[in-house]
């Protein structure tokens, strides 16, 4: 005997503990099984691209911090690179190394947050989250040492970085590099072999490599699906061609692989920082750039490997001191393209985990 049933609609978000900001999913449920999902964006839309057209090139750097507020340094980078390419500005070697060090530190901090909140979505009641925030705090202290701020660093400038590192930074960084692998092992021993974690993540939210490529996924989403694609190697910008590191990839493209890729990327970032500190030359951290910068007419597109994927900046200059058009290719938004395909047919509880494993940041999705 079959009882008559009808699907019911559940609004997950915009205020919900697991939507990582103000994202909203309009989910049609059949019991616990998801039949349809409609993502709703725009609760954090600030018109950032329009604002960029209003301010001068230099005034826009702090705006880019607000894109993906948990990895601010990486957001400065493509914009600064774009302006440098347009204006023909030379960046001193030391500045490039400083950018790499800070960018990789920021990547570790961002991945710690990503994995921590994924574990939270899974229900480890903040334990993993607090552990990871303990180490993220150390990174933030380091970044505060060099930039004076703790979340939105406003660190990069055209032709370099805002200030050179203080003398106590390198010893502090060395201490951090020494203890961090131990902490990563601690997370691994707490999480990776856990049977419940395996049963919650393995085989859940599987995205084949074809699907990942077709949906323009990038970053850990793409690599978790087994595509070996990392702009730091495949389109090496800055001084990334001077470092040795591996690109971790997953096999199945499930939530577990995306989690593993993030954990492994943190180790590789530590390797890069090690090498960068060793190779860093002396010299100036910034070359003088005219205050009222007027890059030549033209357009340019630059991209970097941000923690969440390929972060690009498309910049059009009309020869005045304000950009004519500024567009950011936001990896968090584009990674969400595939959300609907991943969620349909899954259970409500899995939906939260799949969404958490995509790791978005609303500041970037809505801009």
């Amino acid at each position, binding site marked *: 005997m079959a009882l008559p049933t009808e699907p019911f609609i559940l609004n997950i978000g915009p205020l919900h503990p697991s939507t990582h900001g103000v994202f909203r999913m309009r989910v049609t449920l059949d019991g616990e099984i998801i039949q349809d999902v409609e993502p709703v*964006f*725009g609760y954090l*839309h600030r*018109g950032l*691209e*329009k604002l960029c057209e209003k301010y001068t090139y230099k005034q826009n750097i702090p705006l880019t911090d607000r894109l993906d507020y948990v990895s601010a340094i990486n957001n400065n980078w493509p914009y600064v690179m774009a302006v440098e390419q347009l204006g023909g500005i030379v960046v001193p070697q030391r500045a490039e190394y400083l950018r790499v060090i800070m960018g990789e530190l920021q990547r570790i901090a961002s991945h710690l947050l990503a994995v921590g909140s994924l574990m939270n979505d899974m229900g480890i009641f903040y334990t993993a989250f607090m552990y990871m925030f303990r180490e993220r705090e150390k990174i933030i202290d380091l970044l505060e040492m060099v930039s004076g701020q703790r979340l939105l660093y406003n660190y990069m400038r055209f032709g370099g970085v805002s200030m050179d590192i203080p003398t106590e930074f390198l010893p502090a960084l060395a201490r951090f590099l020494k203890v961090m692998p131990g902490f990563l092992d601690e997370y691994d021993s707490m999480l990776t072999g856990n049977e419940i974690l395996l049963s919650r993540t393995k085989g859940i939210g599987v995205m084949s490599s074809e*699907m990942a*490529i*077709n*949906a*323009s*996924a990038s970053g850990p989403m793409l690599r978790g699906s087994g*595509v070996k*694609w990392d702009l730091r190697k*495949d*389109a*090496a910008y800055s001084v990334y061609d001077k470092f040795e590191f591996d690109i971790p990839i997953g096999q199945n493209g499930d939530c577990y692989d995306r989690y593993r890729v993030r954990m492994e990327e943190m180790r590789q970032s530590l390797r890069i920082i090690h090498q960068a500190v060793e190779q860093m030359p002396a010299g100036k951290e910034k070359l003088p750039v005219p205050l009222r910068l007027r890059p030549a007419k033209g*357009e340019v*597109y630059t*991209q970097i490997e941000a923690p969440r994927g*390929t972060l*690009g900046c*498309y910049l*059009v200059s009309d020869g005045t001191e304000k950009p*004519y*058009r500024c*567009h950011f*290719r936001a990896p968090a*938004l*584009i990674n*969400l*393209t*595939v959300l609907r*395909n991943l969620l349909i047919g899954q259970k409500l509880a899995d939906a939260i985990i799949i969404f958490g494993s995509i790791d978005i940041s609303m500041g970037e999705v*809505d*801009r």
Partner: protein
Amino acid sequence: MTTTIDYKDLAVRLQEQFGEGFTASTDCLEVPPNLVAKAAEYIKNMLDFNYFDMVTAADYPDRFELIYRLQSLSHNVLATFKVICSRENPSVPSLANLWLGASLQEREIYDLFGIEFSGHPNLKRIVLWDDFEGYPLRKDFKGKVYGTAN
């Protein structure tokens, strides 16, 4: 390292297939709006450009420019295409059926520039609310003035 495709060569090959209208410059290839769908299919299937990196638009006084960046992950080749459409009733074919990755980005352009993507499966406003008037990223957009400024 990523290499860029030879636009002159590509223009010749596309012209052999679909006729005139493709103009190559040093850093991009201009595609006429009516040939976008066919050219995209050719580029995807024949030239193996499997990764849709980015699409965005720019508003110029006399035209809209759409900038497509396609990438071939297997060969690590990059290509930039431009589509120029008029400011009156701007419309281009949607590529969301070829590359799923285009769908949200096209919706965003539709929302902020008002460029129609014909054939898009779910073309509606994305970051702004549905009855918002105007398209904010157009240069002639005059938003409502909130607050007490004069």
